[in-house]
């Protein structure tokens, strides 16, 4: 059985180790990375639930505090992170077709957008802290700094990962596609979580 014959729906658990290995090729990236990413998604889901429960108990406070955020910056940051994801996805595609130059350029652009996200977020925090809106101001701002702070940590970790991937593409004769796919998967998960965070903190009423 070769890769073309592997059924797309296969999990990779089959009687034949060879068949299992081939079927596994349908998974973008490494299965361990996916387990880690899904674990992160579940942890964030629990936090989203805790936030909405807390919000329900203090709706007026949350609505008033939400007006003090900068939704324009939130929108720009969402667009920046989506653009970053696009470049990283294009890099994965180029890696598979052995187009190292495009893969490297797209990954660098994806990383640059990720860094821009971090800068804009830092500026947003600074603008809030400057007018006295801190983590201890009220329950809403506690969640705002916690949720965006934990996400920010993931962005920084993702940027380190993108740098490692860039080195893999730039300094290796034959970059391993599964390594690039795995790193990209983590980066897109950061984008995915931001989409929910943006809706919860900035938009829901």
């Amino acid at each position: 059985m070769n890769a073309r014959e592997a059924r797309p729906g296969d999990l990779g658990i089959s009687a034949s180790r060879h068949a299992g290995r081939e079927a596994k090729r349908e998974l973008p990236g490494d299965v361990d990375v996916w387990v880690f990413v899904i674990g992160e998604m579940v942890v964030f889901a629990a936090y989203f639930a805790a936030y909405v429960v807390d919000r329900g108990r203090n709706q007026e406070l949350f609505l008033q505090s939400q007006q003090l955020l900068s939704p324009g910056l939130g929108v720009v940051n969402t667009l920046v992170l989506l653009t970053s994801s696009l470049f990283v996805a294009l890099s994965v595609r180029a890696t598979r077709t052995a187009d190292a130059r495009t893969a490297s350029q797209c990954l660098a652009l994806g990383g640059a957008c990720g860094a821009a996200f971090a800068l804009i977020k830092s500026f947003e925090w600074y603008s809030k802290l400057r007018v006295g809106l801190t983590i201890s101001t009220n329950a809403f701002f506690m969640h705002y700094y916690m949720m965006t702070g934990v996400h920010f940590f993931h962005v920084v970790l993702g940027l380190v990962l993108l740098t490692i991937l860039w080195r893999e593409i730039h300094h290796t004769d034959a970059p391993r596609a599964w390594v690039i796919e795995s790193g990209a998967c983590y980066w897109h998960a950061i984008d995915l979580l931001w989409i929910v965070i943006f809706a919860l903190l900035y938009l829901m009423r």
Partner: protein
Amino acid sequence: MPSVSRGRLTGVWALLSIMTIASWWTGSRSDGHAYALVTGGVLLFALIKSRLVIRYFMEVRFAPRWLRLTCDAWLITVFAMIFALYLGRP
């Protein structure tokens, strides 16, 4: 491993960007008291955007069934839970 075409990836990105602006607009329509409607719209946009990222950027549309089902289960659970908790607030 099949790849999503460059044109489709760009198209998905454009759609995601348009929906981001649309959800911002929806979220700013809070002058009345139709908060549940506004929040429902915002969450619907976020759900569609999340699924597009999962399916096209994370390439789950080409992934094994267990991963496709896990991702869809996460999406349904998270957004149903958020909206139910929102509607069930005291």
